[in-house]
């Protein structure tokens, strides 16, 4: 870990909205008591080194009129690479994880999120994955949202 306390302070603040003013980093410099040039330089450093994936709009797929779902597949151990390559090939797939139950065995081991421009496109893509893999894809779209907002405690 090569992040300094200054970096951590910037990183923590950067998880909330960037001010919509002409000089947003100058605004942050007042809040954080770190000068503007240092803030800019450290953000560039953290992006370059991969601590920050991107400083960008976080899009609400549904509000943009897109449909999204969390899908699960029970993939046989020896087909994991092949099936994950198929799933990942879709641009609407933003996450794909191999997961294992800790306190209890569960059959679904591949979990991915997919979005598409509408319901029809979403379902046809999931169906396509089923056809290409011969495996059942379980779609579990959100029926109720209680929380969304990945902001990490940085310490």
């Amino acid at each position, binding site marked *: 870990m090569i992040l300094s306390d200054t970096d951590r302070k910037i990183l923590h603040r950067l998880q909330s909205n*960037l001010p919509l003013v002409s000089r947003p980093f100058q605004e942050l410099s007042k809040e954080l008591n770190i000068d503007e040039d240092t803030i800019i330089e450290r953000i560039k450093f953290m992006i370059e080194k991969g*601590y920050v994936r991107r400083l960008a709009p976080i899009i609400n797929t549904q509000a943009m009129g897109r449909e999204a779902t969390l899908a699960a597949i029970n993939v046989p151990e020896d087909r994991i690479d092949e099936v*994950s390559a198929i799933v990942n090939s879709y641009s609407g797939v933003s996450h794909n994880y191999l997961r294992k139950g800790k306190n209890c065995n569960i059959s679904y081991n591949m979990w991915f999120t997919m979005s598409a421009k509408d319901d029809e496109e979403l379902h046809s893509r999931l169906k396509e994955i089923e056809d290409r893999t011969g495996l059942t894809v379980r779609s579990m779209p*959100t029926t109720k949202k209680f929380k969304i*907002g990945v902001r990490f405690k940085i310490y």
Partner: protein
Amino acid sequence: MTNKKEDIDVKLIKYIQEGLPVTKTPYKDIGQALGMPEDEVIERLKKLLESGKIRRLAASIAHRKIGIDANAMCVWKVPKERVDEVGKIMAGFEEVTHCYERPTYPDWQYNVFTMVHGYTDAECEAVIQAIREKTGLNDYVILYSEKEFKKVGVRI
């Protein structure tokens, strides 16, 4: 909202979704690239945030890289009539980053999903234990990610 306005918003989002310019005047620089005054860039982003089309204009952190390695998806079997009450309790934990109700299937009975992020598995499990105590729920599975095949932000 007219189609034309939407088109410009989409053009704006597409231009910045890989990353804002990290400069003294990022909105002015975006405007210059798109042939739009700085004020218009700011105004459009404000409206996109207000309407909820953009959740945040902020940094996405490589949480694994900064040491937040543990990522537990904990799924719970919650009686239908308790979903609202329980969902609110779970969402109240700082370490719970997402909390959703999702449909069940004959072979999948867990209807409430929580994502718990922490620096260690033990930290995640302490949160899950606290949720159990606060809700009285005991039917749950903790799913740890064994492998990350893909992780990118949503793009349009």
